[in-house]
C-alpha cells in the first residue's frame, strides 16, 4: 500500500499531543509521497517546540524535491510564533499534495484557526497522531480529550488516526501493537478511522496481523549521538 493510498486527501494536516511523533510522521509522509511521484509541499507550522522541527531536515526534504515552507528562514532557530505567508501557496495550489506539520496540543494547533475558512473548502484530512507511551494520552478518554481540543481550536474535523507508538530505540512490535489497541479504542468511540500504524522496517513483518496498513518509516529526527 502506498502513502498516497493511506493519506488520500490533498492536504494532510498532522496534529496530536506533543511528543507523539508528529514531525517524524509528517517528514516520512512527505518523503514517501514525493517518492511516489507526487508534487509535495510541506509546511512546518510548529510554533510550540523550539527543537526537533521538520525545518531541521530542510536539506533532506529539498533534495527529495519537496518544497519546505517554515516561518521566516532568518529566524528558523527562534521560537517566534510567526507564520509564513507562503503557506497560502499550499492551500491554494490544488496541483500539489500538502503536508502540514503542526505544533503539539490544542495550543500548537491554534495556528490553523486563522486559515480555517480556506482549509475547510479544500480536500483536507486532519490527522491525529497517537503514541500510547505518552503518559497524557495513554487512555482512550484522555486521547479523545486532546483530539476534541484540537478540533475545537481549529474548527476542523479530524478524519484519521495514526498510531505512532514507540519508545525511541527501545521500541518493539509489542509496543506498536499496544498502540494499535489504543488507536482502535479511540476509533470505535469516535468513529474516526485508523489510517495506519507507523513502524520501522524491522517491525513491519511482525505486524501483518494488524487490520490497518503498516506505514514503514525511517527515523529522520535523530539525536546528535544517533
Amino acid at each position, binding site marked *: 500500500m502506498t502513502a498516497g493510498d493511506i493519506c488520500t486527501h490533498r492536504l494532510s494536516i498532522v496534529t496530536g499531543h*506533543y*511528543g507523539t511523533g508528529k514531525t517524524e510522521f509528517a517528514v516520512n509522509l512527505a518523503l514517501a509521497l514525493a517518492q511516489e511521484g507526487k508534487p509535495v509541499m510541506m509546511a512546518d507550522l510548529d510554533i510550540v*517546540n*523550539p*527543537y*526537533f522541527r521538520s525545518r531541521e531536515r530542510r536539506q533532506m526534504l529539498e533534495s527529495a524535491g519537496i518544497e519546505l515552507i517554515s516561518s521566516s528562514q532568518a529566524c528558523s*532557530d*527562534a*521560537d517566534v510564533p510567526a507564520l509564513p505567508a507562503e503557506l497560502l501557496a499550499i492551500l491554494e495550489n490544488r496541483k500539489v499534495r500538502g503536508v502540514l506539520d503542526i505544533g503539539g496540543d490544542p495550543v500548537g494547533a491554534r495556528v490553523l484557526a486563522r486559515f480555517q475558512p480556506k482549509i475547510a473548502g479544500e480536500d483536507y484530512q486532519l490527522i491525529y497522531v497517537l*503514541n500510547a*507511551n*505518552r*503518559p497524557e494520552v*495513554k487512555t482512550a478518554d484522555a486521547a479523545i480529550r486532546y483530539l476534541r481540543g484540537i478540533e475545537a481550536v481549529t474548527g476542523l474535523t479530524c478524519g484519521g488516526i495514526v498510531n505512532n507508538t*514507540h*519508545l*525511541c530505540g*527501545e521500541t518493539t512490535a509489542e509496543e506498536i501493537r499496544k498502540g494499535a489497541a489504543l488507536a482502535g479504542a479511540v476509533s470505535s468511540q469516535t468513529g474516526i478511522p485508523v489510517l495506519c500504524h507507523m513502524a520501522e522496517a524491522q517491525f513491519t513483518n511482525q505486524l501483518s496481523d494488524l487490520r490497518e496498513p503498516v506505514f514503514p518509516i525511517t527515523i529522520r529526527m535523530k*539525536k*546528535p*549521538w*544517533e
Partner: protein
Amino acid sequence: MEKELWKGNEAIAEAAIRAGCDCFFGYPITPQSEVPEYMSVHLPQHGGVFVQSESEVAAINMVYGAAGSGMRAMTSSSSPGISLKQEGISYIAGAELPCVIVNCMRGGPGLGTIQPGQGDYYQATRGGGNGDYRTLVLAPSNVQETVDFVQEAFDIADQYRNPVMIVCDGLIGQMMEPIEWHPIPKRKLPPKDWAATGRKSREHNNIINSLYMAPEDCDRHNHHLAEKYAAMAKNETRWQEHQCQDAEIVITAYGTPARIALTALEALRAEGVKVGLFRPVTLWPFPERALHNLAAASHVKAFLDVEMSSSGQMLDDVRLAVEGQKPIHYLGHAGGVMPTVEEMVDAAKAALKEVK
C-alpha cells in the same frame, strides 16, 4: 516496570511532584518553559502551589520564603533567567535553606540563542552570587538520570540545608526518551526544626536570615558553611568512567557532549583506538581526586575535554585535577552548535598523534 515516553522538561516537573515538591515558582523562558507549564497544571492537582512570578528575581525570592517556612520549593529557568536568580541563590545558601533549582542551559552570553549550551558551568560551580557559598550541581546526561536526580536533589538539599542545582542543557529538556519511574534511595533527613512556621509554644523565634552584623559571627558562620561544603565534597562527589581501564586518550565531558562521546567511543574503539570517557556527574563537587588518579595512570597519554562552550569552562577543573601530568586538548562549540561524533573522533586521534 513499564516504560513511558517523556519529554525532559515535563519529566523534571513530574519528578519534582513525585519527590513531594510543595511549591514551584517560575517564569517562562525557552528551552525550559514546559517545566512551569506542566507544573501549572499538575502541581495544584497534588495539593501544591504554583505561581508564575512576575520575573525570575521574584521567583527565586518566593523560593527563599517558601523554603524558609519548611516547604519543599523549586524553581527552574534557562541561562539568562538563572543569571537573574543569582542574588537569591546566594541569600538562600547564606540562610542555609534547602531548594532545588533547574537550569536548562542555552547559548549565551546575554540572550545568546535558544539552542543547547553549557556556558553556565562557571556560574553553576563558582556561583554567580556573592560570598563564600557553594551549590551542589548535578549534571544528568539523559532523561532517566534527570528524573532520578531531580527526586534525589530534594533530599540532598534537605540533608545539607543547601540549594541543589540540576544543570541540563536544552537538548535534555526538549528531547523525548523512554524512562521508568523507580524509587530512589531514601536518605535519613534531619527534622526541619529551624523552619519559620510561627513561634507557637517554642521558646525562641526561628529566624531566617543571611545578615550577620558582627564580623566574628559572620566569620564563624562562613566556617560552618565551609565545613558543610567539605562534607558535601566528601559524601556527594559522583562521576562515571567508560572504558578508561586501558584508555590512552580520555575524553572528559558532561551532559549531552558526554552522550555524543559514547558514540565517538564506539567508533574509535572499532578502529582500535584505546579511548575512554570520564564524565563528572556532580560538577560541584568536582571529582578531582578520581580524575587526578586517572591522569596518573601510565596507560593514559592525553585528555580531550569537550564542552558546548567556545574555549572551555570545565576545562579549568580538568586542569586543576590533572595537575599537568598529561597534556589536555580542547574541542568546543558555543551558541547552540553541538560537537559531532566525527569531530570528537578526529580530535581524539589528533591528540593521540601528538604524544605517540
